[in-house]
């Protein structure tokens, strides 16, 4: 695969986040301050704008630059976490000028690590990670099990969606939602919704 597939991924993320502005605002209004639709829409727009001219030749540099653009545009909690994910993915893919299927596992693993290192949240803390983590597992086992990247992405997207739904079993321990304690349990986590949208963007970027 050419590294333009990364540009398509970010284009798709931009489109999907912006299609879901209101959805994310609504989710975040219940538990947080309601800005998530704006920050994710603006953030992934900035990330895509930074790479859309197609002049990047290094996959790692492309992702790192996209992350930096996002962090500058939206220095909010999730904005900075998503930027950290992209930048970490960039570091992991540094030097590559094309991508194998396996590189997508590396990308999302690094993305996960970037967010986890930055935010110090653990699985089960009711965050973005609880959407991305099951997706990563699904992606890994599908690809290692020999499935096509398209099918693997689609299974990952479904797993992320399930992970998001599953956040209603958890109590929030980070951010604004944490101040609610036990009362946060029944609410779906907006950050995990972003993970589901992100994997959906990955899936749809492969279907041209």
């Amino acid at each position, binding site marked *: 695969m050419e590294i333009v597939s990364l540009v398509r991924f970010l284009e798709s993320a931009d489109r999907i986040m912006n299609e879901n502005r209101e959805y994310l605002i609504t989710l975040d209004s219940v538990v947080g301050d309601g800005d998530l639709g704006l920050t994710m829409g603006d953030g992934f727009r900035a990330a895509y704008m930074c790479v859309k001219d197609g002049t990047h030749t290094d996959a790692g540099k492309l992702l790192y630059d996209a992350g930096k653009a996002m962090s*500058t*545009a939206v*220095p909010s909690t999730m904005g*900075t*976490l998503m930027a*950290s994910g992209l930048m970490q993915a960039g570091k992991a893919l540094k030097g590559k000028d094309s991508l194998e299927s396996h590189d997508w596992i590396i990308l999302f693993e690094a993305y996960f690590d970037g967010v986890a290192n*930055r*935010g110090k949240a653990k699985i089960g803390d009711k965050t973005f990670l609880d959407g991305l983590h099951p997706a990563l597992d699904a992606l890994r086992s599908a690809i290692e099990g020999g499935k096509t990247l398209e099918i693997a992405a689609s299974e990952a997207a479904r797993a992320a969606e399930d992970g998001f739904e599953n956040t209603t079993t958890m109590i929030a321990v980070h951010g604004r939602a944490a*101040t609610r304690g036990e009362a946060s349990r029944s609410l779906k986590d907006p950050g995990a919704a972003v993970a589901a949208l992100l994997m959906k963007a990955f899936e749809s970027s492969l279907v041209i």
Partner: protein
Amino acid sequence: MKKIINQPENYVNEMLEGLYIAHPDLITYTNNDLRCLVTANKKEGKVGIATGGGSGHLPLFLGYVGKGMLDGCSVGDVFQSPSAEQMLAITKEIDSGAGVLYIYGNYNGDIFNFDMAAEMADFEEDIRVESVVAGEDVASAGPAAPGEKNTRRGVAGIFFVYKCAGAAADAMLDLDQVKAIAQKAAENVRTMGVALTPCIVPRVGKPGFELGEDEMEIGMGIHGETGIRRGRIEPADQIVEEMLDKIIADLPYVEGDEVDVLVNGLGATTLDEQYIVTRKINDVLSQKRIHVHKYYVGEYVTSLEMAGFSISLLKLDDELKKYMEAPAQTPFFVQL
């Protein structure tokens, strides 16, 4: 919303323009970005100190950039973190080879961005960065268990951390030493606040919460975070006693200790009231034989036009005392 403003979108930038107009001898900006505020009096060879955070808290954060305190401050929207890139731009500008210390409050957005900026400074610019996070609001969480992360909010007590670290850097100590002093100050300060009215973020246009006509909230944070309890407003002396009880027991401050005291107005509370509070603090501390080295009274960290105040105590040793007494000159804090 009764405010003397133009378009809410321009609130922060217009405020900054006014600030540069009023204090050209002390502050300027870098990176062609009004929100990257740096000292106009860079001292070569010195450890640089940077802070940053959301707007709406003047004189915090930017007001303490100047001589003998901070060297740079990145400025976010009202109650929002600035970006890592802005922090990085400041870091580059204020570093003169001795490295840079970040001092900021314990809020996720700020932590994430300062951490990212520190990584970028190391990765991209080879600048050594250390960080000290102030989190001393005893009402915001319990004390951290050993080895656990401190989850307390940083509020007005950060002023003491700035002052000590700024003076240490000004005395040409190295980065590790300056960090150690900042850390010591941060560990020896405790704060608690009380709010009487909410405040209004200009772009939001309405209060983030409500407080009844005769209600106060003890322990509320400077962005309206939930405090310890709500109740009918009480006489000043009683409020001070409750707050000091919690503050003193926490470190704890004990008989024979020497402290600096900061009485901080949150915005709409008059200086008169702040001095009425000072009087009672002095009573309580005298009774407990905690000796006050110096009182700082006024608006040091506000929450827009919120009514209320906070009390911060800094336990001193000879070293911290020396740095607290050192001169400083910034737009909002001058000490001879």
